[in-house]
């Protein structure tokens, strides 16, 4: 109970300290969007034939004729009250758009991360147990490939092999077959929603749909995770307490898992947090290749259309998630390593 309270206090303090950073992010994005060339009023005027008066009218409606500081203050007020504006492309409030699309991105990213961890940790451990062996070199090559090949290439390759040649994968567009029914909107995560309603056929359809894009993303982050696991396993395997465990005749599996791996995972945890945030924000290529209705492709479309509100909201969202993930990693670190005091 006492530790729980201490953790809670720590989380609260961390969140409080991250507010200035978030404010900074909001301001910088806002300014950046105004500095970029392109005038949304021109873009959204009725057509190329729209006259100057019409554009000016639109600009006035959007508040773009006011000086920038005034716009900023108004925007900050809006953000504080939870109003992130309205997307001009979709015509919906940005908050609603985000709510619809964020679960898609999160579902994809989380699945990809789980796949990446399940692949990279055993690979890293195997490489560290036999440094310089063919296994080690094989893992190194796989990692290099994963980093060098851009996700749109590996994604297309996977589609070509598993959809076109082998026909194992379903049609790689969107989250579910267009003719299949979507689950009732409970959490927005298809896998969870299908499971909650007990529709296991739908669940399987959504799951198979998810696998290709998730693997594409996982391949890309395999390298940092596997290499980090290998490096930190090597360091831990050389440490004194592993020698102690050997000297006292502990079983090899116990030494590798309970003694070495648990210690080696601490730095991997840090990297995982960073990788997760990167994946969520930078998976626009995967989303585009697989027509995945996620937040990243949404933000990219908005950016190309000089649609300020969604881009600003996207950046704010990513910054918030980054902060949350870091706090989470921090807590996990405190739980996993008794040397890190909870306070």
């Amino acid at each position: 109970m006492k530790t729980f309270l201490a953790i809670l206090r720590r989380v609260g303090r961390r969140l409080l300290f991250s507010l200035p950073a978030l404010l900074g992010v909001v301001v910088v994005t806002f300014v950046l969007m105004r500095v970029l060339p392109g005038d949304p009023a021109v873009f959204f005027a009725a057509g190329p034939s729209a006259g100057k008066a019409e554009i000016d009218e639109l600009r006035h409606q959007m508040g773009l004729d006011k000086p920038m500081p005034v716009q900023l203050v108004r925007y900050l007020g809006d953000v504080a009250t939870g109003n992130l504006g309205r997307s001009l492309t979709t015509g919906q409030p940005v908050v609603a758009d985000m709510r619809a699309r964020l679960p898609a991105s999160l579902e994809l990213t989380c699945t990809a991360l789980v796949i990446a961890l399940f692949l990279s940790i055993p690979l890293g451990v195997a490489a560290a147990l036999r440094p310089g062996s063919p296994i080690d070199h094989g893992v190194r090559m796989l990692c290099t490939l994963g980093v060098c090949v851009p996700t749109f290439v590996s994604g297309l390759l996977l589609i070509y092999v598993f959809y076109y040649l082998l026909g194992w994968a379903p049609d790689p567009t969107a989250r579910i077959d267009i003719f299949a029914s979507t689950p009732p909107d409970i959490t927005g995560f298809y896998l969870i929603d299908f499971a909650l309603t007990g529709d296991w056929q739908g669940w399987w359809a959504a799951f198979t749909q998810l696998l290709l894009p998730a693997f594409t993303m996982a391949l890309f982050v395999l390298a940092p995770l596997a290499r980090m696991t290998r490096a930190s396993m090597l360091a831990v395997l050389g440490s004194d307490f592993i020698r102690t465990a050997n000297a006292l005749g502990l079983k090899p599996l116990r030494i590798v898992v309970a003694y070495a791996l648990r210690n080696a995972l601490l730095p991997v945890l840090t990297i995982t947090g960073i990788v997760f945030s990167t994946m969520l924000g930078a998976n626009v290529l995967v989303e585009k290749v697989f027509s995945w209705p996620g937040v990243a492709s949404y933000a990219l479309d908005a950016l190309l259309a000089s649609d300020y509100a969604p881009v600003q909201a996207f950046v704010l969202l990513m910054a918030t998630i980054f902060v949350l993930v870091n706090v989470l990693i921090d807590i996990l670190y405190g739980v996993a390593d008794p040397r890190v005091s909870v306070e």
Partner: protein
Amino acid sequence: MTAPLLQVEDLKVDFSTRNGIVRALHGIGFTLHAGETLGIVGESGSGKSVTSLAVMRLLDRAGRIAGGRVLFQGRDITRAAPGDLRSLRGAAMSMIFQNPRAALNPIRTVAQQIMDVLRAHRRIDAAEARQQALDLLKAVRIRDPERRMSAYPNELSGGMCQRVMIAMAIACEPALLIADEPTTGLDVTTQKVVMDLLAGLTAERGMAVILITHDLGLAARYCGAIAVMEQGRIVEQGPTEALFRDAQHPYTRRLIAASPTRRSTLADLAQGAPPVEPVSRPPPPPGTGPLLEVQKLVKLYSGTRAVDDVSFTISAGGSLGLVGESGSGKTTLSRMICRLIDADGGDVVFQGESIGHIPARDFHKAPQRRDVQIVFQDPTDSLNPRFTAFDSIAHPLRRLEGMRDGSALTARVTEAASRAGLEPALLGRFPHQLSGGQKARVGIARAVAPRPKLLLLDEPTAALDVSIQAVILQLLDRLRREDDLALLFVSHDLNVVRMMCDQMVVLQAGKIVEAGPSMRVFEAPGAEYTRTLLDAIPHFEPNAAPADRVDA
């Protein structure tokens, strides 16, 4: 006569390194019967740790047994399969290590780690293992064992970690226990307690012990027989008393001579070194105050008084030893005096001028920085690995005297190096190309280069072998005599302080418990704490029977 427990015959070990194969052991042999204690002594690089690892078959990938054999309980284990070895290790032979905190898994509790060992060799359930673990903690006399069960190693002191390590090593009642420098890095009093405990426990259980140590006194006190190793060979072995009374091999004699004892003087330590010629110094002009005056220094660390109202003085050319156990505040105090950290109260007066009020971060600009120089504990870590010896020594001259590259700088560096006994040919080398003793000399040359008046030495020989320590101590003493250099010598080794310093200050928990001339403090300690410290030093009398040996 029963068969010996352990028999090592003509054991040879090779290490493959970047420069080819290096032989670490050149055919060593010894025999150990059940219940006996054997001390293996030698300096770093002599192969004593390799011996123990080879016996346990714990050599790392680069090491290989190239010849000879190890018989344990009559079985040749030199070529035993890994599975067989595992069932031996921990159950029949086990080992405890130097640096106990690192030897324990940082993220498992004490109870879990002891239970891991028990359950690796015995078919018992968790509750039973837990009970046995608790009994073991009681056996190693840890205070408050129930609470320590759920503690992590970082929550325990070094001494307690070593007790946990001992509990793990004796958990399955092995017949042989190898202790590799078990008390190096622990305080003398802790060392005594831990070694007494170890000797008692092993005697009770009839275990044979191999004690590997660089400390002759420790081996003499706790071992029935001793083997002396030098460069991968056992040069001499025999019963402890006979060995010390009548050492045959010149290396053994040198080692015995270099080990400080109760009565040894600096001249005794390094026999054959040129005698120190007394330098006549003009008496200080009357009316001059002390060189350094420490006035009621206080340092607070999160509420506790790490240094509590400490005052003393050092005269020009004098020497003062600061003694105490870890946590006594001696390092904090020395850091305040050399103005690396700020005091929370009191003052430091150097040559009549207060330097205690110059903030530590600005002290490098003060003129007194040149006069107060420091030699740090670890000769390796305190040198920049990217600086050659020349650059390291020239650094203070460039920074403090603004010297530019040129013949003047070269002359000063060479002069400082020669005063520290460092050959000019070594000046172009990087730290990793120098031996421990040579690195210590670079550290000393760097400190004396700006011609300071006060030299602070923070455990300058703690990381060095005894024979090198002897030479370095003589060097420091010569510098003091010749250059009128005052020394403030921080050490946990009372024998060293007695030889080096006229005055001695004993610290405990930040307070001075005793101060006075070294000889007086040593001969007739006034404070109870000083007496405890003195009693804890494992000493040996080469010409007398070891009176207080713990008979195992």
